[in-house]
């Protein structure tokens, strides 16, 4: 019966392992405030996951080097425990549980993408752990009555509805015909809802409503439909891959639309990768470096962009900026709560009203940030197409270029 012996030994070994490793880290160790985060380092969101992690890291470094967080007269430093959620929402939910129960984390930062945030939010809510998240924009996150969830970004349904309003305005106030292609995931589908509502509000008609499967990298069929039906606006959203595929195939198939509205242009480094082919694409963004917000840690957007580039060697997409802002919010809340009690921190978070380099932050009861508008930028190239830049075109307050509308036909470009 040696096998049974083996199994018994094995089981007791596990039991021993479990019982000895239950030394959970406290929420505050020495002079460190431990935050937990699951980010996508592998899997389909790995590019944006890295943007998120870099955003967190630069802010932690900056806050720590500038005196840390002062609570009760003592200075504390931030420290983040990272796990890799593999771009998988099931994994994200487990990791949230694990961070809270096993690692004893009491304050959480959000993962990348709405789907993953949606998976984590029920867990943080259950354990009443405040989570400041910077990359989950789906509106359904903010209608569930979560009390411990705070998002520094504007909800996803606001991403592109400004584009529809602009198109209607340019059309002389008359309704427009809209073609949409959205990936089958929580974020993109929520952007779609925003468009559907904007269409209803303006009386516009949606003539194409395609939902792209997640692994699809070919939009030729959708674009053929667009060519055949000639809509006034084409809206595309599908994270980084969707943006790159759309521009590649639009330019190759010579699809002429008066307005092309998208998301994730800067995360995809669209203007760099596609150059002139991406010109005139209108992009929704939570942030742009040319905005005039300021704070004490990063200064303004331009300084942030320069520092970020020095540290990570690429221009910060808004995903990084909003992630950095999440830490500024946490720091501010800790100092105002002047305590490490999660309930007090939560109340302090709810009362947040501040300006960061990324924008003003003030949370609605649902947890979304209501005091920061979305910006739209357009990719504009110089004459020979050697250099393309993102220029803010709306809202007018920050506009550094005029919206080019309608987009010139491919035959004239």
């Amino acid at each position, binding site marked *: *019966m040696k096998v049974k012996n083996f199994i018994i030994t094995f089981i007791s070994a596990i*039991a021993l392992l479990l*019982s000895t490793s*239950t030394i959970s880290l406290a929420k505050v160790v020495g002079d460190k405030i431990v935050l937990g985060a699951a980010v996508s380092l592998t899997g389909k969101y790995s590019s944006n996951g890295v943007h998120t992690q870099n955003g967190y890291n630069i802010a932690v470094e900056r806050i720590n080097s500038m005196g840390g967080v002062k609570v009760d007269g003592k200075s504390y430093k931030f420290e983040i425990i990272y796990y890799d959620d593999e771009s*998988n929402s099931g994994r994200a939910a487990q990791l949230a549980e694990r961070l809270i129960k096993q690692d004893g984390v009491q304050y959480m930062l959000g993962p990348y993408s709405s789907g993953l945030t949606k*998976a984590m939010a*029920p867990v943080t809510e259950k354990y009443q752990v405040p989570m400041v998240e910077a990359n989950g924009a789906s509106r359904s996150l903010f*209608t569930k009555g979560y009390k411990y969830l705070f998002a520094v970004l504007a909800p996803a349904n606001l991403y592109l509805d400004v584009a529809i309003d602009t198109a209607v305005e340019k059309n002389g106030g008359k309704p427009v015909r809209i073609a949409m292609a959205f990936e089958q995931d929580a974020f993109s*589908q929520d952007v779609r809802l925003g468009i559907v509502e904007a269409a209803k509000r303006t009386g516009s008609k949606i003539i194409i409503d395609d939902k792209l*499967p997640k692994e699809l990298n070919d939009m030729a069929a959708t674009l053929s439909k667009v060519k055949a039906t000639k809509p006034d606006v084409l809206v595309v959203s599908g994270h980084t891959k969707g943006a790159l595929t759309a521009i590649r195939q639009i330019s190759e198939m010579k699809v002429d639309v008066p307005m092309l509205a998208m998301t994730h242009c800067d995360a995809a480094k669209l203007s760099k990768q596609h150059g002139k082919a991406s010109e005139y694409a209108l992009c929704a963004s939570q942030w742009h470096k040319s905005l005039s917000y300021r704070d004490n840690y990063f200064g303004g957007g331009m300084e942030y962009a320069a520092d970020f580039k020095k540290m990570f060697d690429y221009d910060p997409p808004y995903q990084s900026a909003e992630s950095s802002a999440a830490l500024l919010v946490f720091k501010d809340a800790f100092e105002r709560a002047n305590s490490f009690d999660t309930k007090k921190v939560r109340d302090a978070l709810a009362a947040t009203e501040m300006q960061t380099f990324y924008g003003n932050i003030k949370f609605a009861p649902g947890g979304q940030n209501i005091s920061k508008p979305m910006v739209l930028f357009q990719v504009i190239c110089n004459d020979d197409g050697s250099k393309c830049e993102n220029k803010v075109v709306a809202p007018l307050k920050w506009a550094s270029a005029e919206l080019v509308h309608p987009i010139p036909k491919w035959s004239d470009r």
Partner: protein
Amino acid sequence: MNRNTLLYASLLIFGLVGAFVFPAYKLQLSFLYILIVLAMTWDVQGGQMGYNTFGNILFFGVGMYVASSVQIAMFFSLSEWTDAGGEKTFVHTVPQFFQGFAFGILLSGIIPMLIAGIIGYGILGLRGHYFAICTLALGIAAGEIAGGVEIIGAGQGMTVPVWPKGFGSNELSSQFLYYLSFALAVITFTFLKWAYSTRFGLVLNAIRDNEDKAEAMGIYTMRYKIIGWMVSAFFVGLAGGIMGHINGYIEPTEIAFAGPTFGVFMVLMAILGGKGTLWGPLVGATIFHIFKESFWTFFLGWQYVALGVLIVVIVVYFPEGIMGWLREKYPERFGEVIDEADRKAQVTLK
């Protein structure tokens, strides 16, 4: 026999007190029990019957969706619940929650079982890799279809009803799920142990060893294959239903019909432990889970490298699994009698 009783008793006691001794690991352990169920039920096809299926994840996903949809639809409008905008929030009262839970879990076993029964005749007629690939396609197609059906949330996914407020604490809810998944693992184990000791188990093995001969002997192999698949589907469906509640959120291709993760993990766990044995999948699932979780902690971002290497090493060097390896080493312990003279007479060929 004494040892056997000791083993079962210690396992049972470990399971029963586990929730209190290691409160921080409750969810990890419930997860382990679910994995054990997945590995054991995969082994019914892959190990005992010789039909390597990738499609059991289909039942997992269906069970997950059924359990939550039924629980919601019994009291509210499902389409409003999953409505992407989510303007409305619904809260189950305590009796509603548990009534819905009970019915949902029950159906999450029965409906996958029926599906297995219906499609079984067509699909179990395939053999070898055609069977493996057909079931792989089934799993992927199901995930893609679920991602397009709006009543269950389409690509947006679906939130699972939350534990009713005012009925115990969070601890109670995770204890509840812990014991539920533990019970499922125990029932699955006991049932399969019994089933393998009957004629049913012998027929499955006969199919694995030579299906044509089994048929020639007058056994309706198709009937047994379908029943075997239905048994697996039932338990996998239940596991899916419970898993939905553990996760709290259902996503079509990543959580429910998660072919590249759970779909493959269940195969790996069974092979690691030793397919075709009763204990193998259990041991395999435990080792796999511990290995995987510790790598997540210590090798941030490198865990897939470790996992990839592990898989290659397992299948290349231990294709018979841990139990198979032990059996080869200590055949007597498995009740195999080898004549001493025979052993001495053995010469290493090669």
